[in-house]
Every structure is written in structure tokens, then in C-alpha cells.
């Protein structure tokens, strides 16, 4: 039984080895939620990947929305129609959805609504490590935080119950190490699902004009007071005692796991208040916890969110307590916490004996291996062609504005074609300004999914305000970086049903851009002149570089066992090094002074064999021995 079948059909009481995100998908089924909407983003993506696989059989609606704001709005629509709904995204995705979020708190919902944010301490795959617990405060919404896959599943069900009790959405926060932690999960019963048809939300029931919002503002305060009572009583916030329980620890999320490991290793007498509901906090329980301990440590990742609130409670209640956290620099402010970090921070105040462990010298000698574009990736050909075209056009002053996706890797060597890279859709917004306000040739790179997500309004802005820029859409016909999800340009939706694709070229032309060319990035001979023509355009011009993601292509080729391969004819090779220095496919390397191609890595795209990459025609089709 594969994981998806286990999530879908696993019996109550069974133990399954699930990723946090897969456990959340199971929780979704156990809570009998009718609607799910998302925009993919690491570390939240596998929730959607799992739901997408089981949506039809599971009899619920799943949508990959155009962006996070729309995902939240679709889920909200379901919730005010009486259905349980779930919107989920990565932490920065909640920024996109924040406008909707703030008003939804005022509007309230009928069916349970949970909004998941997956934060990314240490920025494994993100542009920042913002702490989304602040959104709970900002939006006046309850927040629930699990520490393990088991809790992720169980707490999601609780979040829906709380949401319905309060008539408002509940925020559900994971971090990378919770979403991407795999552990045994005991499955619970799945409820029988009702047909998912919503009912009329109510005449004038969800309007947030000022005259309406003034009334709902006080209701919001009352709702949050009720939430405070829940937080006071719930076992989502719980106490755990180790040894004599001398030192008090307040912690949550992933930090809790590492803290327990440290407490056990050093046999620290400790009492832990594990916070599973982080907004509103159980203030009275915290006050009595503070009274029971002379020393308190607040152990939390990212901002001193809990610590500040705990300090306020101590001050307000006049509790004399020695409190250690980030604000007194006992714990570091940045990056994720593991047992090593926590142990080092506690060493001095608790006089722990630490074993000295030095990083062995050899680790420093290992050459770095940052992520690279895959063999056969069409983006490599695109960057190679654009770079050549710029040079051949004699353009010296060029500014590259890039965006979020696999093609962000174009910022690394050998291309280094990103001078600006902020957030989803930011390439076009920044390019709109740069093209208007500098004399530089501005080239904006954006992927297909990102173009739909937030690129379109910025394109309108550039055209409307007379900016000069060349837009390159790197259309690999998928949302690749997060795991090949669908997007509006593709002929199927999140459920796997046929859907009408939206044409990127037509969207661009409809804004008034005249010079729009579509090219195959594998065809360098046609691609190069297209870019050169586009670079001569006044105003906004566009090149759509369309070629399917190599991972998808390889999967298909492997099925048919027809994957071609290329080899180097060393007699012809002039050792000019262009293929390794400027094209830099991971399948091409140097062995014993010769250029060679690793057949296990080569995906047979053949771009390196073109004269524009190999002027000696030394890279030729070879014969593959099995796939």
C-alpha cells in the first residue's frame, strides 16, 4: 500500500509512517472537510500533493488556486456557505493572502475554516524566515501549532472544532521540521462525508463596509475572549514534568522536540509548558506556571513572540521570576533550533557539561554542491541563449530582474543573471520601475505559474506607465520547484480533471504588447535571433520560452524506455571548455583531461550538441545501455 492509499484508506488504530504534511491530509479526511485550496509552496506543498491524489476518491473538492489570496477567498466562500474548508500555503504566501485574512476575521464564517501557514526557520527554501505567529495577533485569530506528524493530524481536527465553536477561521502553523518530519502516526476514524453543496451565505451577512465593520469589531473582541477561555482549558496547552521539575520551560512547535531531547540527555529537572494554542495564550495558566518556578526559560524559534507575552504577564501580575529567552540573549534570535543550539544556550545558566565536538577538517575540504538546474532543464538553454543574445546585440548596460521558481537558480554561476529577486511576481514589478526610471536594458524573467500568480498586474502596470523592458516567460508547463503541480496554463486542474488552459501569449497581447514571440528553448538557432529582435523593441516586448520541465519529460521517456543519450567524441573535441564553463550541465564533466558525459545523468536533450554550445561538433548521439 503506497502512502496515498494509506492516507485515504488506512483503518482507525493503524500506524502509518507519515510526513507531517501527509498527516495533515489525513487529518483533513478525518475532520470531514469538504473544500481545500492552495498555492504550492515549500514546506507546505505535500499537503496539496496528497490531497490532489485522493480528492476524487475522497469525495472532496481540491483546487490549486492562481495564488494564495484567491485560495483563501475560495476557502472562505465555502466556509460562509456552511462547508468546512482548508486553505494552506507557505509562510510568505500568507502575505499574499493577508488582505483577505484581515477582513475575514471581521466577517466570520459558518463552516469551520482553517488556514495553514508553513514557516521556514533557517530558510531552507525561502527568501526570509518571517514568524507568522504575528499574523494571529494582527488578524485577531486563534492559532494552533503542532510539534509532530501525530499532532499535526490530531490538532487539525481540533482546529476545525474550535473554528466552528467561535464562528471564525483558525490559523494553523507548522514549520519545515514539522511539515517535513516523518514519524509513525496512529490513524483515527474518518467521518462519512456529506455531499458538498454550500448554502446561501445570508443577505448582507458578510459585508465589510465601514458601517458593517464597526458592528463586527466588538463581536471580534468577544470571539477572541471566548478563544481565550478555550486556550485556558484545552489540552493543546499541556504540562510535562521531568525529574524534580525545578526549572520551568515554555516552548512550542519544533523547538519542543529538541528541548525534550536535551532535558533527557542532561537529566535536567524540568517542567515544560508546551503551548499548542499560541493565540490567545492561556494567560492564567502561564501566570501560575511562573509562580511555581524561580527560573523560566522560553524556548522558541524565530521572534521572541511567546517571551514578550510571558514577560507582560509576569509584569502585570507582579510575579518575581528570572526569565531567560531571546531578549536577554540566552538564546539566538535567528535560525532554527536543534538540540545543539539549545544545549549551548542552556550550558551556562544550567551549568551543563558539554562534550567538545569540533567539525573535522575534512568537511571543509569537500567542494560545495549547491542546487543546480537539472540535466535537460529548458531554463539552462534559455539563460544561455539570452546571455549570448545580449552580448551579440552589443548591450553593455543590462539589468536582470528575476523571480521565484527553479529559474531562480539562474542567479548562481555560470549565468548570474539576477540583479533583483524579491518575491512572487516581483520580477515584473521591479522591472516596471527599473525600465521606467533607469536607462538600463531591463530583462524580466518569470515562470509560467508565477506569471499567473502575481506577474499579470505588474505587466499591466509596465505597459500602462510606458516602461521599457523585455519579458522572458520561462514556461516549463508546470509548477516545477514545488513538485510539478498544475497551473492555469495547463489543460488539467488540481483534481486531475480536464480544464481550459489560459494562454500566456494572449494575456500578454491583450495588455497591448505587440512584440510577443514564442520559442522552443532547445532550438538555440531560432531562440537567439528572437531575443535579439525583442531587445530592439521599444516599450514592453515578450519572449515566451516554452518547453516542458525535464523531470516530467524524463518520466515519460523512461516509461517508453527511449531516452536518448549524448557522448563526447574526444578526437573532435577542441577542449575549448565552453560546455563546462558556460553551459554547465551537471551531466558534463572533465575526466582525465577530457570532456565526458555521465550517461546516468544525461537526459538526451541534445542542446549541448548544437554548434552554439559545441563549436567542434564533438558532442554526438550515443547508445544507451538500458534505462
Amino acid at each position, binding site marked *: 500500500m503506497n502512502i496515498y492509499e494509506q492516507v485515504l484508506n488506512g483503518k482507525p488504530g493503524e500506524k502509518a509512517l507519515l510526513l507531517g504534511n501527509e498527516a495533515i491530509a489525513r487529518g483533513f479526511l478525518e475532520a470531514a472537510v469538504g473544500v481545500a485550496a492552495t498555492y504550492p509552496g515549500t514546506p507546505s506543498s505535500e499537503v496539496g500533493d496528497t490531497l490532489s491524489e485522493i480528492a476524487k476518491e475522497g469525495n472532496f473538492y481540491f483546487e490549486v488556486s492562481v495564488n494564495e489570496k484567491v485560495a483563501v477567498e475560495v476557502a472562505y466562500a465555502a466556509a460562509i456557505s456552511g462547508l468546512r474548508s482548508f486553505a494552506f500555503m507557505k509562510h510568505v504566501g500568507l502575505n499574499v493572502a493577508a488582505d483577505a485574512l484581515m477582513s475575514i476575521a471581521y466577517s466570520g464564517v459558518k463552516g469551520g475554516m482553517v488556514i495553514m501557514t508553513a514557516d521556514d526557520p533557517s530558510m531552507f527554501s525561502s527568501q526570509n524566515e518571517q514568524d507568522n505567529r504575528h499574523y494571529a495577533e494582527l488578524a485577531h485569530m486563534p492559532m494552533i501549532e503542532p510539534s509532530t506528524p501525530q499532532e499535526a493530524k490530531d490538532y487539525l481536527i481540533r482546529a476545525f472544532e474550535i473554528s466552528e465553536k467561535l464562528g471564525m477561521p483558525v490559523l494553523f502553523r507548522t514549520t519545515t521540521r514539522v511539515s517535513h518530519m516523518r514519524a509513525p502516526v496512529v490513524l483515527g476514524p474518518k467521518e462519512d462525508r456529506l455531499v458538498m453543496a454550500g448554502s446561501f451565505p445570508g443577505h448582507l451577512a458578510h459585508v465589510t463596509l465601514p458601517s458593517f465593520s464597526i458592528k463586527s469589531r466588538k463581536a471580534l473582541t468577544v470571539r477572541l475572549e471566548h478563544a481565550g477561555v478555550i486556550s485556558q482549558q484545552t489540552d493543546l496547552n499541556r504540562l510535562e514534568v521531568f525529574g524534580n521539575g525545578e526549572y520551568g520551560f515554555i516552548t512550542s512547535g519544533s523547538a519542543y522536540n529538541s528541548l525534550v531531547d536535551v532535558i533527557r540527555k542532561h537529566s535536567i529537572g524540568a517542567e515544560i509548558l508546551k503551548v499548542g494554542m499560541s493565540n490567545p495564550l492561556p494567560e492564567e495558566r502561564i501566570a501560575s506556571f511562573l509562580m511555581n518556578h524561580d527560573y523560566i526559560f522560553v524556548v522558541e524559534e524565530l521572534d521572541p513572540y511567546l517571551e514578550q507575552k510571558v514577560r507582560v504577564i509576569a509584569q502585570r501580575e507582579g510575579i518575581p521570576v528570572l526569565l531567560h529567552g531571546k531578549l536577554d540573549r540566552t538564546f539566538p534570535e535567528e535560525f532554527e533550533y536543534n538540540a545543539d543550539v539549545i544545549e549551548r544556550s542552556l550550558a551556562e545558566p544550567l551549568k551543563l557539561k558539554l562534550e567538545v565536538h569540533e567539525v573535522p577538517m575534512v568537511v571543509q575540504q*569537500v567542494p560545495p554542491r549547491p542546487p543546480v538546474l537539472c540535466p535537460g532543464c529548458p531554463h539552462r538553454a534559455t539563460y544561455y541563449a539570452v546571455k549570448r543574445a545580449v552580448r551579440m546585440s552589443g548591450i553593455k548596460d543590462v539589468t536582470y530582474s528575476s523571480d521565484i521558481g527553479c529559474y531562480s537558480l539562474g542567479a548562481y554561476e555560470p549565468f548570474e543573471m539576477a540583479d533583483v529577486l524579491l518575491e512572487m511576481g516581483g520580477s515584473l514589478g521591479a522591472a516596471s520601475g527599473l525600465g521606467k526610471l533607469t536607462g538600463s536594458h531591463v530583462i524580466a524573467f518569470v515562470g509560467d505559474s508565477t506569471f499567473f500568480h502575481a506577474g499579470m498586474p505588474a505587466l499591466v502596470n509596465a505597459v500602462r506607465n510606458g516602461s521599457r523592458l523585455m519579458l522572458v516567460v520561462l514556461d516549463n508547463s508546470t509548477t516545477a520547484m514545488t513538485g510539478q503541480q498544475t497551473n492555469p496554463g495547463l489543460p488539467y486542474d488540481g483534481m486531475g480533471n480536464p480544464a481550459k488552459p489560459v494562454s500566456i501569449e494572449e494575456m500578454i497581447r491583450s495588455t497591448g504588447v505587440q512584440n510577443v514571440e514564442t520559442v522552443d528553448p532547445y532550438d538555440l538557432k531560432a531562440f537567439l535571433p528572437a531575443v535579439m529582435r525583442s531587445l530592439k523593441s521599444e516599450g514592453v516586448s515578450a519572449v515566451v520560452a516554452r518547453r516542458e520541465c525535464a523531470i516530467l519529460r524524463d518520466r515519460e521517456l523512461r516509461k517508453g524506455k527511449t531516452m536518448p543519450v549524448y557522448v563526447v567524441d574526444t578526437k573532435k573535441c577542441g577542449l575549448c571548455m565552453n560546455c563546462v564553463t558556460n553551459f554547465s550541465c551537471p551531466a558534463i564533466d572533465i575526466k582525465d583531461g577530457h570532456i565526458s558525459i555521465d550517461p546516468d545523468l544525461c537526459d538526451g536533450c541534445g542542446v549541448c550538441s548544437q554548434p552554439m554550445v559545441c563549436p567542434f561538433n564533438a558532442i554526438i548521439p550515443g547508445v544507451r545501455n538500458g534505462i
Partner: protein
Amino acid sequence: MEYNVIIAGVGGQGVVTLGSVIAESAMDARLNVVMSEIHGLSQRGGSVSVEVRIGDVRSPITPAGAADLILGLESIEAFRVLDKANSNTLVLVNSRHMTPVYLSIRGKEYPDIRELARSAGNTARIHFMDAENLAREAGSERAAGTALLGAALSMTSIPFDAHNVHSALEKRFSGRLYDINFDAFERGEKAGIEVLEGRGDYIQAGKAAIGR
């Protein structure tokens, strides 16, 4: 009880899959297990390491120096995670070499592994193993990790046995892939015994006998 395994390799090599097989094996032996996975940006081509922690632990992150077993699916990647090793850690290094683009761009070739091994000295008990070839004999290079796991099981005491691995393989693979992985695992087990008995074409780092 606590037993920590680290699998190091390059994105796309099946690092996560091997981690799952080990985690399922531990679960089959009725042990607690937590595992950290890497998804997203380095889907293919970047350094990837996955940690499987078995026993009385909560966090999926292995503390520095606490690894009991390191399986390197790619040669230099095994050395990259040696900060998690101690002098008792068994490190099995696959013969697979993938030159980082970082080197090729600079006109450099794959580093001399024997030199890295010398430099590692007694940091850990490092063994090289042609798991790639064992897996090829079983039907696919992609089963090299399973062969390494088999060898590890023969060479050191892991808190689960071959039967647990068999049922984990059954869970993770079906049809021909299962057969290949089962075969690769058995070949790995045999190769591990040969290493213990001082036979076979396997090299131990830190010893004068390096070189082949």
C-alpha cells in the same frame, strides 16, 4: 536506546527513499522512529542529506557527533556530513562519483577520494564499497542504497534485522523494483560479510592499505 542514521547523497539519487526504507524497517521492529526530509529547492543536483533517528528521541535532527551510521550514496557527500560522526561511526561510501558543477566550471576534476579519506583519518570508520556495481548486478544502479543498507546490516549492529528490511522493501516497492531491491540488499549483506572477513575489494580509510 538511540540509533542515528544519516543518508547523504545528491538530489535525485533516492536519498529520501532509502531513508523511508530504514524508517519503515525500524517501525516494523516496533521501535520509535523520526526522520527529517529535504524537499523543494534542491530537488535535483544539490547536496541532500536525510536523517533517521531510531529509539528514544523526539527531534528529527541528529546532534553533532551523534551519528551511528552514515550511508553515502555519492562519495564526497559522505564526507560532507562527517561533522555528525564520531570515531565509532560506521561510514559506508558508495563508489558513485558525480562531479559538482562548481568544479567543472573551474576546469577541475572530481577530487581524489583517497586524499579525502586520508584527511578524515580516524574521524570515523570509513569503508568504500562498490555498491553501484552490486546494484547493477541486481538489475539497476538505483538500488545502490539498498545494497549499502545490506552491507551495513552485516557490518554493525543496527536495532532491526533483515526480516524487518524485507517487509519495509515490500511496503515501498512492487513488481520488478521490489525484486531488484531485494537482490541488491542480499548482495550488500554478502559484501558486508566479506569486508568483515577481510576479503573482497573494499578499502578502509585511515589504514595504510588505501589504494586500488
